[in-house]
């Protein structure tokens, strides 16, 4: 409840939600909201400029761009959530184990993190996707598997500071198991910053998917994603500006929305910054 009150007072988070909530509705009710079938070609009406029946115009196969952008939001939101979900689960588990047990375990996990961080992530993803079938599920998994390192470092640092607090000692003295102590006592107190980083990460994941789709190894046509809409648009960019503009705006707004929400959350969840005027 306190969280909601603070959320209502935070302008950054509100702006973020103002963008994201309609975006969610769009994704969920894509079928109702899109005026045309997004994959049905209409060869009589290709590359038509925005008009009343096609507000965002049509593409080189005569498909309605608005409908394709609306359906593309499903891909983007799904990619954002699933890949960041995967990254968060891996990051939190490895970070928690590393921070709580320390010693050799910590050293091994953290060197693994260093190793993963040394790879230029985008090229790693490119290389992996090149060998796999380019499907949306593969993309989400690969993005998830290559973006958990920051979260695990963050969680480790939080846990290092919490594990010596007296309430954790008390739990150990009660004879609780290590798993119970980690999941019931330490993690709930360590997760606030993780929500912030994960929220910001969703924006990053959406951008990565768009970039992959733009390069042609992401979501495959005829399924619409904002990235492959842009990729198809580039061939006709001189004569049909509407093909690139609207998917571009959609990506921009969504990523912006997550970044604003993430910034806002970091204010709300950090008690030291909570009372600063905004």
């Amino acid at each position, binding site marked *: 409840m306190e969280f909601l009150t603070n959320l209502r007072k935070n302008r950054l988070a509100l702006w973020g939600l103002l963008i994201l909530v309609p975006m969610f509705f769009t994704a969920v009710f894509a079928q109702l909201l899109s005026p045309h079938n997004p994959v049905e070609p209409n060869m009589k009406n290709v590359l038509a400029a925005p008009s009343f029946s096609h507000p965002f115009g049509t593409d080189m196969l005569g498909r309605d761009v608005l409908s394709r952008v609306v359906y593309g939001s499903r891909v983007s939101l799904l990619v954002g959530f699933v890949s960041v979900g995967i990254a968060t689960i891996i990051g939190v588990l490895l970070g928690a184990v590393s921070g709580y047990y320390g010693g050799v375990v910590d050293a091994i996990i953290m060197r693994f993190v260093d190793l993963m961080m040394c790879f230029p992530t985008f090229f790693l993803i490119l290389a992996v996707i090149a060998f796999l079938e380019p499907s949306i599920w593969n993309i989400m998994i690969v993005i998830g598997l290559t973006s958990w390192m920051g979260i695990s470092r963050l969680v480790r640092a939080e846990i290092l500071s919490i594990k010596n*607090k*007296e*309430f954790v*000692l008390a*739990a150990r*003295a*009660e*004879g609780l198991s290590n798993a119970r102590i980690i999941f019931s006592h330490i993690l709930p*107190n360590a997760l606030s910053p993780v929500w912030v980083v994960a929220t910001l990460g969703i924006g990053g994941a959406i951008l990565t998917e768009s970039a992959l789709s733009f390069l042609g190894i992401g979501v495959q046509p005829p399924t619409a994603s904002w990235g492959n809409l842009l990729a198809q648009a580039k061939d006709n960019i001189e004569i049909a500006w509407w093909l690139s503009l609207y998917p571009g705006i959609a990506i921009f707004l969504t990523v912006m929305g997550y970044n604003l929400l993430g910034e806002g959350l970091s204010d709300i969840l950090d008690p030291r910054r909570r009372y600063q005027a905004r």
Partner: protein
Amino acid sequence: MGTLLSVSELERFYEIRRTVFSLKKETVRAVDGVSFDLEDAQTLGIVGESGSGKSTLARCISFLEPADRGDVTFMGRDWLRVPSKERKTLRPQMGIIFQDPYSSLNPRKRVARIISEPLEAREGSSQRELLRSKAIEALEDVGLGEDFLDKYPHEMSGGQRQRIAIARALSTRPRFLIADEPVSSLDVSVQAQIINLFLDLKERLSFAMLFISHDLNIVRFISDHVMVMYRGKIMEMGPAEDIFQTPFHPYTRMLTGRESNGDAPSAEPVLEHQGRPGCVFFSRCPERNKHCQTEVPRLSGPGSHRAACLQYAP
């Protein structure tokens, strides 16, 4: 009445580097050859300035920290070496209370959960009704009402929080309670209430207690026996009244205020002494002589009142 807890030659050393870059590691002897016995339903007070190893001793006994050497016998078992399964069954017999009630209660849990967790760990089950009724019982023990069950720690005062910590430690009806500076972080008026609560609870529930404090008056008030520690070693131990009536050791006299600190240098950094032979108290002792610098004093004395000082040789 039998011996509940017996500690013998317990040692706990830390290796530290003076600065991040120093290659040489130095050893801090946090607990250095401590031995004592604690009878059922008795209270042993441990006194000493900060850094004297009181808390480390408590943590070694409660198995929160490994001991490097020595033995602890608890309820007849070799406590430091029992298989972890057996230790788990003995855990509920040992309660522990920490100094700071602001950090010893998980800020995200309600009082009901905080108090019933040790019970849950013991029973291995979570029958809600039973746990709740036991939690209410534990709250009543410490003078708080049922309406505290659903509160969060930040909704309570320091004294109330410490009562919750006590209720948690006693919820399994342990035979042995470790209280590590339980009143040091409380207001003076609240201190008295909590001390009275301890006395009252001890009478009703009859448990043995290890009561750690740097405040001699409190220790004197609550303890049957007292142990004075300095730099990880026992300086003097014996029945509480004897120690306060006729303190043998110069350090005890200094703590009781019988003797002014005089021109003796006050506390020096812990590290300065490491590796030097002789009495650990040498540099601050007003009665030192040249033997004190070379010879290590042993605990000796008539009956149960003993001191580790060369000046006091019976």
